[in-house]
């Protein structure tokens, strides 16, 4: 940090320190939802559907076939998972903007959230982050035993402390800015398909 930035920094921190009110303690945050007995998979599926995503429970043994049938016009299929071959992998992308040529991306999420219908994704699963944004459609594989109850549980996931980039995705990209009517897509993917299938790599 150069010396003028140092001065600015000291100035701001000094003003904040001088002005901040007398310290109040952090409250204890209870572990909400511990005793709820809802069916997590059902709750999760409702959440996804509410946000215009779709949950698939029977994709059949051949994922490539599933993708080709579901997206018959797709030419470029980018797979970041071993269960699916696709036409390319993220490693074949040079500049991250090249992901815009992808029709369908397939990735695996390490965690779903029942409360909201969200799936967790990070740079670890995506390898090239933009494959989840610049592609036209997105397929996310999720092991149904890896669905946690609520957001409190979700933020315990180690990704949030370890990965440079991680996000909770809930339904495909949308916007309600025009007339308060939600439309898809906005800038991101047009559809989100969550396929519930066991994680072959899970311990």
């Amino acid at each position, binding site marked *: 940090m150069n010396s003028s930035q140092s001065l600015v920094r000291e100035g701001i*921190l000094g003003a904040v320190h001088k002005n901040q009110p007398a310290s109040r303690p952090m409250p204890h945050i209870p572990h909400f939802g511990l005793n709820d007995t809802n069916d997590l998979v059902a709750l999760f599926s409702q959440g996804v559907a509410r946000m215009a995503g779709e949950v698939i429970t029977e994709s059949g043994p051949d994922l490539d076939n599933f993708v080709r049938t579901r997206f018959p016009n797709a030419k470029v299929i980018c797979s970041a998972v071993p269960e699916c071959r696709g036409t390319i992998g993220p490693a074949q992308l040079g500049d991250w903007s090249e992901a815009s040529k992808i029709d369908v991306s397939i990735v695996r999420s390490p965690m779903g959230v029942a409360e909201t219908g969200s799936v967790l994704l990070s740079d670890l699963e995506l390898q090239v982050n933009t494959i989840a944004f610049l592609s036209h459609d997105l397929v996310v594989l999720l092991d149904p035993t890896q669905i946690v109850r609520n957001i409190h549980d979700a933020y315990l996931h180690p990704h949030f402390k370890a990965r440079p980039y991680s996000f909770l995705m809930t339904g495909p990209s949308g916007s309600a800015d*025009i007339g308060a009517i939600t439309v898809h897509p906005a*800038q991101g993917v047009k559809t989100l398909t969550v396929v519930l299938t066991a994680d072959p790599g899970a311990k």
Partner: protein
Amino acid sequence: MSAVDQAKNAEAFLEDTVHEERLDKLLWMGRMRRDAAARQVPEWEELRTLASEIKEHTLSNLSEHLVEFEANATANGVTVHWARDAHEHNQIVYDLLTERNIPTLIKAKSMLTEECELRPFLEARDIRVIETDLGERIQQLDDQPPSHITGPCIHKTTKDVADLFAKNYGSDPNNEDPAYLAGVMRDNTRPEILNAHAGMTGANFVVAETGAIIVVTNEGNADLAANTPPLHIVSVGIEKLVPNMESLAVFIRLLTRSATGESITQYTSTFRGPRKGAAMHVVLVDNGRSARLGMEKFWPSLKCIRCAACMNTCPVYRRSGGLSYGSTYMGPIGIIMMPTADIRKYSELPFASTLNGSCTNVCPVKIDIHEQIYAWREVMEEKGQIQTVKKQAMKVADKVLSSPQLYQIATASVSTALKILPHFAIYNRLNAWGKHRDVPEAASETFHQWYPNHRLKGNEVLGL
């Protein structure tokens, strides 16, 4: 510079019944959706209390948490900058771009950058700025500021947008379908995103413990702006800190439900560091926040998480339109924030309220908004911001109303009473009441006159 005349702007907005009635209906629906979402969460009020307490802890230990964030972010490979005011912020952003010869910046929504007037600053220095948020882009094309914190163009009809896009993008002016219009925007913005060398986002929260920036969007445009180019710049106010991820969960559960009634937005993203070969810079901005932190009555306004629930429930906002406030932040939260930026320009805003208190009760972080609005009125008087004529009328009122003899003389005749009773005797808007309403009719005698002729008690002067 004269004060923003919010009342006059509101009156003009009301003359357009199409836009006003539509805005009122849409935002009331937003309030109803918020209520429905809150009903789904049995611990809703407990979450509000927790959120308020977490923010109060954080703000009362802000210097420590800022240093903590800076250390953790730096360890993650992020460069942290500090800016005392809007100009310093704008200069830092400009320098980051010109050092790398970057002529175009794509950006996601950030109210802070509106506050700093970043776009005109950069555009005056030949840097193109492309908004990627649909509502912000619409407002950018129309050369208008956002009218609402979460829905920047909520005041526009689909026809307004169709006309605007036809003019700017050559699309079909007769196609008002929001899906079509969003598609037009996407087609026109995608090339800009792909060719950009720098992307800017704001931040909804800053997590001290993990050095993380949290951004929440429906479109995923923040993720696009941050991930596609090799330079990610974050502009964020110093008040956005939360201590850790555990506390973040409380806010994430409250934010979208308060804003739109959904349980969460489509993208809730955590940025902790750049990818290999790329750079991430965070600009921490003060711009009056540290000063507001020292204001005994008003520092709780810094708890705000920008959900706009207060605007959706505010009956005055819904009938005035967000642009009537002439300020970066509008509605109830705007009223209590803006006077710290310019007490003279925004001296009328605290009076754009009926003090009904609905805002305070929907605020997810329990800011005592309507009580701060009332407190600002007193400050305006102390700082001499109340118009002399109004103050004079009030002085007369106090003289009459503190003297039983003067009061009884004044109220003996209704026409004199009308001049004295402060509800009516406000500076030169003496006849304002009667513009849209009938004036109450005179009673033949006041209660005061009736009483001695019908009752015995209380006739005696109480030795005053």
